[in-house]
C-alpha cells in the first residue's frame, strides 16, 4: 500500500490535477451556462497549486512510483514544470475566447485539464502501457478540443484530419511497441534497457525503433508526419492551437528522449537518420512558410522547423546535444507562447488572421507590436533574445561532435536565413507598411492577457541576457536522464 508514498514523492502534481478534473466534472453538470466562469477559476487554481507543488519534489534523487511505471527525475520535473506553465498560459488565453463556446465553456477547460494530465504523465512514464495510455489521453482530448467549435466548418475538418492522422500514427507506434515487447518480453523501459544491454540484437530492434519513433514524430510534427499540423493549427480554435504547438510538443519530445537509448549499439544509424529527419523538417517548414499569408499557418510551419532544430539536438546523441535540445525547447516554448498570446489578442478583437491585417499596427499599439516583434525575433534567433542564445548553444553542441557533422551545421545555418526572411515579413508588416483604417486601435489596457504577454516578452529578453542558470538547468536535466549514450561533452 505504498501508493500514497509514491504519490507524495513522485506524482504530486498529477494527483492535484486529477483532483481538479473530478471537481470540474461535477461542477460542469451542476452549474448553468453563465456560471461556468467558476470552472475557469478552479482550473486556474488547480494548475497554480500543482505548479507550486513541483518544487516540493526532490530534484536530485530519482523516485519511481507505481511499480516503476512512473519516474520523477530532474528531467521530468523540468518537463512537468514547462507543461503546467504552458497549460496555465493557454487557459489564461481562453478567458475572452471562451465566449465563442456558448454553453460548453466548462467542458473546454475540463478537456484541457485532461490533456494536461496526459502530457504530465507522458513526461515521466517509464512503462510502455503507461506511455500508450498517457499519449492517447493527450491525443484524444486534443482531438475533441480541436473540434470544439462544432458550428465552424474548419474546426470540424481540423478535428477529423487530426483524428485520422493521429489514429494511424498511434497504430504504427503500437505495432512498434508490440515488437519491442516481443523482443524483450518486458514492458518496463528500465527492464527493456537492461535486457538489451546484455543480449545482442539484430535488425528487428532498429525497425521497431523506427516504428516507435513514427508515433512521436507525429506528436512533435516533425518531417515525415508533419503535413497535418498546418491544417489543424489553422482550423482549430486559437487556444487549442497554442496548446498543440507548445505543450503537446514538449510532451512529445519528453518521451522521444527516452527511446533514444533504444538502439545504442549502432549509434551511427540513429544520428544520421534523426539528423536527416531534423534537417528535412527544418527545410520543409521554412520553404512552406516563405510565401504564407495566414499568420496561423505561418506559425504552424515555423513550429515544424523549430521542432526540427530540437530534433538536431537529440540526433547528436551526446549529453551536450541533449542539453542544447532541452534549452532550445525551453526557448521555443517561451517564444511561441508569447507569439500565440499576441495572435490571440489580435484575433479576438479583429477576428482576422492575415499578415496584411497587421499592417501598421505598431503605430497604434506600440507595446503590443514590440512584444510580438521580440517573440518573433527570438524565434528567428536574433541577438538579445533567448532564441539567439539557444541557437548558439545548439550549434556549439553540434560542433562538439567534431568536424564530421559540419554538414549538419552548415545546412542548419543556411536555414536560419530562410527563417529570418518570413519572421521579418511579419515585423515588416507591423512596423513598415501603412495601415488602411487609421482609426482602428486594439485595446491594450492592463488586462490579464496583456500583462502576461508583456511578462513573457520580458522573460524572452531576460532569458537571453541572464543565461547561465538556464543552461545549468538544461545540463542537469540532460545528465539525469541516465541514457546509455556517449559521455563526451559535459565533462565538467
Amino acid at each position, binding site marked *: 500500500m505504498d501508493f500514497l508514498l509514491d504519490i507524495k514523492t513522485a506524482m504530486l502534481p498529477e494527483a492535484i490535477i486529477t483532483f481538479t478534473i473530478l471537481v470540474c466534472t461535477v461542477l460542469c453538470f451542476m452549474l448553468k451556462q453563465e456560471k461556468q466562469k467558476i470552472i475557469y477559476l478552479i482550473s486556474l487554481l488547480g494548475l497554480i497549486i500543482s505548479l507550486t507543488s513541483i518544487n516540493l519534489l526532490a530534484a536530485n534523487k530519482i523516485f519511481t512510483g507505481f511499480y516503476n511505471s512512473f519516474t520523477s527525475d530532474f528531467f521530468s520535473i523540468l518537463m512537468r514544470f514547462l507543461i503546467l506553465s504552458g497549460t496555465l498560459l493557454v487557459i489564461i488565453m481562453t478567458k475572452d475566447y471562451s465566449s465563442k463556446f456558448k454553453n460548453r465553456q466548462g467542458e473546454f477547460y475540463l478537456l484541457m485539464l485532461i490533456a494536461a494530465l496526459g502530457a504530465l504523465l507522458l513526461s515521466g512514464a517509464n512503462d510502455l502501457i503507461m506511455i500508450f495510455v498517457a499519449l492517447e489521453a493527450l491525443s484524444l482530448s486534443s482531438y475533441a478540443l480541436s473540434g470544439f467549435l462544432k458550428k465552424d466548418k474548419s474546426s470540424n475538418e481540423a478535428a477529423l484530419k487530426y483524428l485520422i492522422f493521429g489514429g494511424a500514427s498511434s497504430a504504427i507506434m503500437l505495432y512498434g511497441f508490440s515488437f519491442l515487447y516481443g523482443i524483450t518480453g518486458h514492458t518496463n523501459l528500465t527492464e527493456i534497457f537492461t535486457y538489451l544491454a546484455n543480449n545482442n540484437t539484430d535488425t528487428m530492434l532498429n525497425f521497431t525503433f523506427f516504428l516507435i519513433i513514427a508515433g512521436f514524430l507525429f506528436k512533435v510534427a516533425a518531417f515525415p508526419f508533419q503535413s497535418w499540423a498546418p491544417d489543424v493549427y489553422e482550423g482549430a480554435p486559437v487556444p487549442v492551437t497554442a496548446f498543440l504547438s507548445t505543450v503537446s510538443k514538449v510532451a512529445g519530445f519528453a518521451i522521444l528522449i527516452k527511446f533514444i537509448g533504444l538502439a545504442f549499439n549502432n549509434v551511427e544509424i540513429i544520428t544520421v537518420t534523426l539528423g536527416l529527419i531534423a534537417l528535412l523538417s527544418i527545410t520543409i517548414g521554412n520553404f512552406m512558410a516563405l510565401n504564407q499569408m495566414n499568420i496561423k499557418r505561418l506559425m504552424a510551419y515555423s513550429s515544424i522547423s523549430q521542432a526540427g532544430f530540437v530534433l538536431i539536438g537529440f540526433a547528436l546523441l551526446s549529453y551536450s546535444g541533449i542539453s542544447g535540445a532541452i534549452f532550445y525547447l525551453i526557448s521555443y516554448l517561451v517564444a511561441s507562447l508569447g507569439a500565440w498570446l499576441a495572435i490571440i489578442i489580435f484575433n479576438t478583437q479583429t477576428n482576422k488572421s492575415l499578415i496584411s491585417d497587421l499592417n501598421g499596427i505598431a*503605430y497604434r499599439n506600440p507595446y503590443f507590436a514590440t512584444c510580438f516583434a521580440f517573440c518573433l*525575433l527570438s524565434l528567428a534567433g*536574433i*541577438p*538579445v533574445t533567448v532564441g*539567439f*542564445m539557444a541557437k*548558439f*548553444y545548439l*550549434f*556549439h553542441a*553540434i*560542433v*562538439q561532435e*567534431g*568536424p564530421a557533422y*559540419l554538414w549538419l*551545421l*552548415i545546412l542548419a*545555418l*543556411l536555414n*536560419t*536565413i530562410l527563417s*529570418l*526572411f518570413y519572421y*521579418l515579413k511579419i515585423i*515588416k508588416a507591423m*512596423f*513598415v507598411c501603412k495601415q488602411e483604417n487609421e482609426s482602428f486601435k486594439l485595446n491594450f489596457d492592463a488586462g490579464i492577457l496583456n500583462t502576461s504577454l508583456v511578462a513573457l516578452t520580458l522573460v524572452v529578453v531576460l532569458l537571453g541576457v*541572464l*543565461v*547561465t542558470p538556464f*543552461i*545549468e538547468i538544461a*545540463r542537469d536535466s540532460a545528465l539525469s536522464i541516465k541514457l546509455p549514450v556517449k559521455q563526451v561533452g559535459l*565533462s*565538467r
Partner: protein
Amino acid sequence: MEFLSLNILIFAPLIVAGIILSPLFPNDEIIVRRFAKGFSGILFIYSILFMIFFKPYNTGYQFKETIKLFSNTNWIEPLGISLSFGLDGISVMLVVLTTFLVMLALIASKKSITTKHKLYYSLILVLTTAILGIVTSRDLFLFFLFWELELIPMYFLISIWGTGKKEYSAMKFVLYTFFGSLFMLGGILLLNYFHFLNTGIYTFSIEALTYSRHYDIPFIVKALIFLGFFIAFAVKLPIVPLHTWLPNAHVDAPTPVSMLLAGILLKMGGYGLIRFNTQMFPEMIKIFAPMLIVLGVINIIYAAFIALAQKDLKLLIAYSSISHMGFVLLGLGALNTIGITGAMFQMLAHALISAGLFLIVGVIYLRTKTRIFSHLGGLGQVMPKAFYFTMLLALASLGLPLLVGFAAEVMIFYGAFTSNSLDGFILSNQFMTALAAISIIITAAYLLWMLQKIFMGNMFEKWQKAYDLTPQEAIALTFLSIPIVLFGLYPEGVTSLFLPFVDNLVSNLAL
C-alpha cells in the same frame, strides 16, 4: 582617469534610447532632436577623452572592463563567455570616428526625417551601441552578438524612412549580412572547439584564442575558419562579388543613415579583417595575402569603371566608396607596416569623405527631389557654399595632396609597391599596384564629371529657387572638412595612435 569606463561609453546610448522611447518622454519633434543631438555631442567628447588618455605604446588592451554577474562569475560560465570590453590601437580611432559621425548624422537629420522621430533617434542610438560594441569587445561571442544586433536597427532605419523600393533593399541588406555572419559563427565555434580539444577549457576571449598558437589545428580546418571570417568581412567591406547590397542600401536609405552606413559600417569589415584575419591567423594571412591584393585591385578598378557609367548621383558615390575600400584591401595585402597603417588611415579618410559626400547628396536631393544627372545642372550659381564644400570633398576623395585622401593613398601605394607578399605569385606586387594606380585617373574622371554635371555649366530654370545650405548642414560640413584638412596636413597625429599596434602586428607576422 578612472571615470573613463568603457561600459558607460557603450551602454549609455542604449539607455538613452530607452529613455527616448519611453512614453513619459515628450513626443515633440524638436525636443527629441535637441536631446539626441546634445547626448551625441557629450558622447563624442567622452570618446575624445579616451583617445587622449590612450597610451599607444604599451601593447594589448587598455581600459579593460569585464562585467561580472552578481555571483562574480563570467557572463555565461559553462561556455566560457565573458562580457569584456577593451580598447586597442585600432579600436580607439574607430570609436572616436563612430561617435563623431553619429553626432554629424544627427545634426544633418533635421530636414530629411519628417515622421516617427522618437523611434528614429532611439534606433540610431541603438545602432551606435552595436557599433561601439563591435569595436571594443574582447570576446568573440560578444563580437558576434553585437555584429548581429546591428542588423535590426539598420533594417528599420532603411525600410521606414527610406525612399524608392526600400523594403527590398533593406531586406537584401539584412539577409546579405546575416548570410556572411553565419560563416563567421561557424568559424568561431570551430575555433572554440579546437581550443577546447587542446586545452580542455571552453573560452571565447580573443586574447586567449590569439596567443594560443602553440596547439595545432589541422591546416584545412584553420583555412576553413579563416575563410569563414573572411566571407563575413568581405560582405561588410564590400568585396566585388558580394557587394551588390551596397548600391541598393545606399540609394534607398535616408541621408543620415547612408552617412552612417558608408562612414562606419563599411569600416567594420576592415576592422574585422585586421583584428581576426591578420592578428589571429598570421600564418594564414601570409598564404591568403595574394588573394587579398588581387581582390583589392579588382575592387578598385571594377567599381571605378562602374562609377563612370552611373546615371544616379548616390549610386556614383556608392560605387566610389566600394572602389576606395578596395584600397584598404590592397594596403592590408601588402602585409608591411606602411601598408596596414595606410589601410587604417584610408578607412578614416574614406569615412570622413564619404560621409560628407552623402550629406551633399542629401542636400541636393532635398532641394531638387531628384538625383539623376540629366535633370541636374548649374547649381553652383544658386548654391555657392554647397558647391565649394562639394569641390573640397571631391578633391579630397580623388586624393589631392595636403588633404586626408592623399596621405592614405600614398601610404598604401608605397606599402603595396615595396611589399613582397606576392613573391611566389606570377603577378608581382609592382604590377598590381601599378594597375591600382590607374584608378586615380578614373576616380578623378568620374568625380570631376559629377562636379561639372551638377554645379557647373548653365542652370536649369527650375532650380532657380534652390536655397543654399541651412545652418545645420553648414555646421555638419565644416565639422567634416576640418579633420579632412587637418589630418591631410598632419597625418602623424592619427598614425601615431595605431603605429605601435601595427608594428607588433607585422613583427608577429614575420615569426
